């Protein structure tokens, strides 16, 4: 593509036209944000629509079902009513049948919040052009992100295999765990929504970890150093915080409420 005269360096002879700097002459940044960051924000907005659709669906379907009205200690799993989350998610790795309501999910939440912190630290190091610090904090973020993914794998595995006692079904057989068509915890849609919502979030975490690994390789190769800025880390950082943000909402609407 032919070079425009407006792109010549300021040291060019004075006989040339002065660079045009009007609103529509290019080189402007709407909202004082770079193109990449603005587009990341718009992508995240659209992604937020998808997650909001999932959580709204969850809210609607949950309110469609009957509520268990008795004392929490008398609660039993039944397809009649929506399960109480701390009765479903009460196992902890390595503790067998011990009742640790929401213990593991609390740990997962902490891990993800910590990964968000190490991500901001990487962004902050990038703004100072501190390559070693960027590498260090990216590695921590990758570590926490992968740990979260492994925890989710355990959580899914436990949800699928179920509690030892299981639930007696209408035909008298005992059913353990969950699949898309049947589950021991409550209405069929409860397990379906669990798989879809946490699965979609987990896919986002996995994509995030892949992007972070790529960022780490590029940082190590000095790509950003040569480019003169670490903006890519900031863009991936926005995505990573968004994934943490979504988990905050999933945590509230799936595990707490």
């Amino acid at each position, binding site marked *: 593509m032919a070079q425009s005269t407006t792109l010549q360096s300021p040291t060019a002879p004075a006989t040339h036209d002065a660079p045009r700097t009007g609103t529509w002459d290019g080189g402007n940044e709407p909202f004082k944000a770079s193109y990449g960051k603005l587009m990341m*924000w718009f992508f995240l907005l659209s992604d937020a629509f998808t997650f909001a659709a999932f959580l709204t669906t969850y809210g609607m379907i949950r309110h469609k*079902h*009957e509520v268990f009205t008795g004392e929490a200690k008398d609660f039993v799993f039944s397809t009649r009513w929506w399960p109480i989350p701390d009765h479903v998610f009460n196992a902890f790795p390595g503790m067998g049948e011990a009742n640790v309501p929401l213990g593991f999910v609390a740990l997962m939440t902490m891990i993800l919040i910590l990964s968000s912190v190490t991500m901001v630290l990487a962004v902050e190091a990038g703004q*100072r052009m501190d390559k070693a610090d960027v590498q260090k904090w990216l590695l921590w973020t990758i570590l926490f992100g992968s740990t979260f993914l492994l925890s989710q794998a355990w959580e899914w595995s436990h949800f699928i295999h179920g509690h030892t006692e299981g639930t007696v079904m209408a035909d008298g057989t005992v059913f353990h765990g969950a699949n898309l068509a049947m589950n021991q915890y409550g209405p069929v849609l409860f397990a379906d929504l669990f798989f879809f919502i946490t699965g979609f979030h987990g896919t986002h975490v996995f994509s995030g970890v892949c992007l972070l690994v790529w960022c780490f390789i590029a940082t190590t190769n000095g790509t950003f150093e040569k480019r003169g800025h670490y903006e890519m880390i900031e863009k991936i950082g*926005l995505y990573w915080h968004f994934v943490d943000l979504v988990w905050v909402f999933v945590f*509230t609407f799936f595990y707490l409420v």
Partner: protein
Amino acid sequence: MASHATTEHTLAPGEIAKPNTGWIWKTFFVLVGITAVEFVFVFLMHPSTLRNSIFIVLTILKAFFIVGEFMHLKHETKGLIWTILIPMSLLVWLLVALVTEGSFIGEVLQNMFK
């Protein structure tokens, strides 16, 4: 873009500025604190609309800190802030509308043969 890091002296070539991470850890402890408060409510209160409202308020508070500080939105221009917040606030409307709709459908289904 407004930056948290304000370097007082100009850096020599090759010199790396000192990290400025106080605000990051402060935000982290606020987030951990809010999550801890949520757990206190899970175990000390019976499920009720009030408890759910508390959870939702605390969740929005956490979202404010993550989006405002970690994602830096608080320090962006007003135009960008509204570009993000207005569509999101419409989603809250959708959520409230469909949850109400869900309760109504449930009521109809449960009382159909009574």
